[in-house]
């Protein structure tokens, strides 16, 4: 039937394993499975991929975009503009096409009437509506199955192995053999039709690689859930909020599978609370009484938990909150991403408070840091935050496989009956016996007449009795400062990539791949070498301070308007204040390498250090010595 319309300048140089898709559908139309099959099919070919879903805060009918980036070098940050656009949604089709980059490939239903638009693009109209009639005898299922047709079309056009796709379909719908049966023909038919009817004029194609053999594909929320399950998390309370809900939901699912004794008894308790204040209150109660306690939420929930977090800090209760951040302020964009709650989390609650926080960059770290956070909370007897975001939490990430935790679970300083007997009941809850600012606690239920102490959010003595005395107050607050300093030595250290440059770039969390991609572009295409420091925790450990000390200029890259992490650095480490520049991105979408490159270059040009830096740079490598990534 149709072939490509009015040819744009045909691409002659082949682009292999380095391009991106955007698949536009309507929310609730069931395209998610098709997109996952495409993503996983590519992954099964050994090609690095990432899948990011830009969905609306709605259940059915509004436009949604799934982007897949295929990148042989393993850069899995968001691609700036898609090379291939699959338009399945009549509502957004015109705009999607209008916004396409010059030369992009457009795949759409031929009834959408898009062929007259954008002669500078490559058009592949497909009669999806007609084809689905053949592909799916069951009328009710057609709306669903139609999505699998574009998977088949893409298979043909971009040389995505049919076998991989079918394998992906099967693993995707593992427990639903009938669904596999319904969908498989659609892939095959789409592929067949495209092979027979489309004349390929674009440059994009795939070839098998072997870069995914030790990898998995997983959402960050599921990774965090696994980390919690494997690290002794016992009490979970939560209140639904996008994009965090799937964390506690999958945590409960996993635990129901793997944390139940043969007699059906569970080694965990999960409660859906009436609101976030209650959720935080529950883990406060649970942490106090000795559980490894956890909740997840997003910005509005953190705001609501503020008072309770302050109680946790001051009464020294261990619990972990994972903030899967979305775009704020206020209700903001519930289905978009941001690193916008840095200040809100780190300094949560009134009075003098500073909280320990970790910043995972990828699913593997999300897995590991879940355990680290639970440990830190109990070691430090304080609330600990995991700062994730929608991009990590809800998108599909290619990740290294997770290692089984070998170290012991760290329960911190708890005195049990036997300890109390040895101490002859002599102990004081808030006494800094070890000089690290951390006292010893007992758990309710400990069977010793001197086990009990009284916990409160009001002023207290070392013996945990009520006190309004000025000296008691100050002494206690100073001990909490000491504890904070102890935290600096316990939190995960930054990941530093040292190339001997005088320019540093500091970042954290989900911008990892885009920032490193940008650094490689800057080095290869612009001749600027940059040292990288990926923050992994607050408070800042000595290594972070050193990094700031050793560089003349440090760009801080983050996804918020106010440069919140840069503000925190200036607040906490004054000496670094004047050398900090900011690279900011805050439109709700994940960061791209392109933004980092252009923002960096724009500022670097005007930098008084710029020339000096360039000079230093040329001599630097040997002088400073390249430590590599440590």
């Amino acid at each position, binding site marked *: 039937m149709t072939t490509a319309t009015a040819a744009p300048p045909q691409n002659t140089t082949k682009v292999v394993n380095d391009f991106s898709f955007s698949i536009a559908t309507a929310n609730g139309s069931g395209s998610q499975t098709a997109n996952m099959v495409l993503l996983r099919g590519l992954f099964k070919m050994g090609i690095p991929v990432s899948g990011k879903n830009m969905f609306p805060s709605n259940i059915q009918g509004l436009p949604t975009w799934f982007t897949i980036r295929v990148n042989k070098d393993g850069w899995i940050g968001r691609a700036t503009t898609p090379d291939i656009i699959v338009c399945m949604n009549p509502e957004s089709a015109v705009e999607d096409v209008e916004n396409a980059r010059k030369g992009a490939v457009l795949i759409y239903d031929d009834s959408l009437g898009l062929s007259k638009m954008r002669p500078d693009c490559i058009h592949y109209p497909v009669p999806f509506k007609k084809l689905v009639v053949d592909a799916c005898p069951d009328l009710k299922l057609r709306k669903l199955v139609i999505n699998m047709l574009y998977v088949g079309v893409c298979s043909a056009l971009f040389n995505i192995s049919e076998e991989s796709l079918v394998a992906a379909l099967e693993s995707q719908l593992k427990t639903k053999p009938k669904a596999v049966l319904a969908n498989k023909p659609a892939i095959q038919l789409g592929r067949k039709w495209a092979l027979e009817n489309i004349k390929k004029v674009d440059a994009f194609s795939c070839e098998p690689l072997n870069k995914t053999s030790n990898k998995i594909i997983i959402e960050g929320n599921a990774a965090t859930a696994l980390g919690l399950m494997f690290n002794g998390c016992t009490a979970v309370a939560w209140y639904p909020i996008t994009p965090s809900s799937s964390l506690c939901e999958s945590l409960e699912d996993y635990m129901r599978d793997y944390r139940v004794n043969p007699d059906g008894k569970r080694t965990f308790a999960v409660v859906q609370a009436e609101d976030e204040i209650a959720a935080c209150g529950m883990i406060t109660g649970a942490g106090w009484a*000795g559980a490894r306690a956890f909740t997840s939420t997003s910005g509005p929930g953190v705001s609501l938990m503020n008072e309770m977090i302050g109680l946790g800090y001051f*009464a020294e209760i261990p619990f972990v909150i994972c903030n899967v951040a979305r775009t704020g302020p206020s209700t903001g964009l519930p289905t978009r991403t941001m690193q916008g709650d840095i200040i809100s989390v780190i300094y949560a609650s009134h009075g003098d408070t500073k909280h320990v926080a970790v910043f995972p960059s990828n699913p593997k770290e999300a897995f590991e840091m879940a355990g680290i956070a639970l440990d830190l909370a109990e070691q430090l007897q304080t609330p600990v935050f995991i700062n994730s975001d929608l991009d990590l939490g809800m998108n599909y990430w290619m990740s290294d496989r*997770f290692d089984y935790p070998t170290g012991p679970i760290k329960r911190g300083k708890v005195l049990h009956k036997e300890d109390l007997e040895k101490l002859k009941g002599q102990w004081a809850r808030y006494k800094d016996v070890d000089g690290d600012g951390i006292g010893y606690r007992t758990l309710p239920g400990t069977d010793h007449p001197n086990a009990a102490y009284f*916990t409160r959010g009001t002023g207290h003595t070392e013996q945990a009795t009520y006190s309004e005395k000025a000296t008691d107050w100050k002494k206690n607050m100073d001990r909490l400062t000491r504890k904070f300093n102890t935290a600096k030595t316990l939190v995960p250290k930054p990941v530093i990539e040292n190339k001997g440059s005088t320019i540093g770039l500091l970042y954290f969390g989900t911008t990892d791949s885009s920032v490193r991609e940008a650094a490689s572009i800057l080095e290869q295409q612009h001749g600027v070498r940059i040292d990288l420091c990926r923050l992994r925790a607050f408070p800042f450990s000595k290594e972070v301070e050193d990094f700031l000390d050793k560089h003349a200029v440090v760009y801080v890259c983050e996804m918020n308007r106010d440069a919140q992490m840069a503000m925190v650095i200036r607040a906490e480490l004054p000496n670094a204040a004047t050398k900090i520049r900011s690279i900011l991105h805050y439109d709700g979408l994940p960061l791209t390498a392109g933004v980092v490159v252009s923002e960096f270059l724009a500022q670097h040009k005007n930098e008084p250090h710029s020339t000096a830096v360039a000079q230093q740079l040329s001599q630097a490598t040997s002088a400073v010595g390249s430590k590599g990534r440590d």
Partner: protein
Amino acid sequence: MAGTTEAAPPAESKQPQVNLIGLSKKDYGGLKSTLCIGCGHDLITARIIDACYNLGVRPENVAKLSGIGCSSKTPAYFLNRSHGFNSVHGRMPAIATGVQMANKNLKMIAVSGDGDSANIGMGHFVHVMRRNLNLLYIVENNGVYGLTKGQFSATADKGSKQKSGNVNPNEPIDLCEMAYMLGCGFVARLFAGNSKQMTSVIEAAIAYKGLAFLDIISPCVTFNNHEGSTKSFAYAKGNEEPLHDIGFVPAYDPTYMEMDHGEEREITLSDGSHITLKALSKDFDPSDRVAAGNQIMEAKHSKKILTGLIYVNPKSELLMDQMQVIDTPLSLLTEKETRPAESVLKQIMDDLA
């Protein structure tokens, strides 16, 4: 007049009397109360001590919880040998839920105020009534915010006049009615001055395996004393005007009012106000849900304060059992018990590859 000493049994011999588990009354005591002299809350404290002593409760197995307020301070005044947690205003029910999750074997005794539970904590109050924790939940109900100096709470009488002159236009919220409606398995109303009834119902509540809610009328001797309040001090008027001093708190004796089953009596509180108490009759069957509902409705229509055990559901399953939580407290589970095998992780990883 601190609760810890007031009700100590007369020391007949030199050896202190002990209970079932060999503890003396002193072992159930707490710190000296810092409440106003005559405060109803102290009377309740004393009865909690009595009840725990009488039942032979092991204090180490109790967790004491509260929010913020004069009432919420009281856990410091009983059971020194129990862990206590005086948390934040209105959120105690959530804290209690968490404590129970961590350790299902603990008996929890929680004290809250009417402001704490019926105002800021209303949402949590409602929801905890639907969760069957092993919790004795007491509201020490005085119709005011004692600790912040006398603003009206949501249980204040309709028609009361605030200091500012505002007349309270709202019907008081009846926490017992709410608890009953929401499916709470043990609902009672008591009066702080009636110690016999209080002790026996508190004992029953502690023995009850489930959430027992007690709404105890506990007059605030200090802040129901402005003119126009339906609980104004009778003598704080006319030529007694000098007493209207900023920050002066006169001392009162608590009102005692022992009543028999079925008895109905109008009493004058230390603050000069009148209330009619009606003790449930002996043959009333609190396990009859419909009858209990009717009693609540009737009392409401006749503006009487029904005291006694209004409703009990003898067969209620604890939330942690419903949730099939293991018998060992979760807080004591070891790494071995809470970390699935390496093969599990391998399997999961394989599935995601």
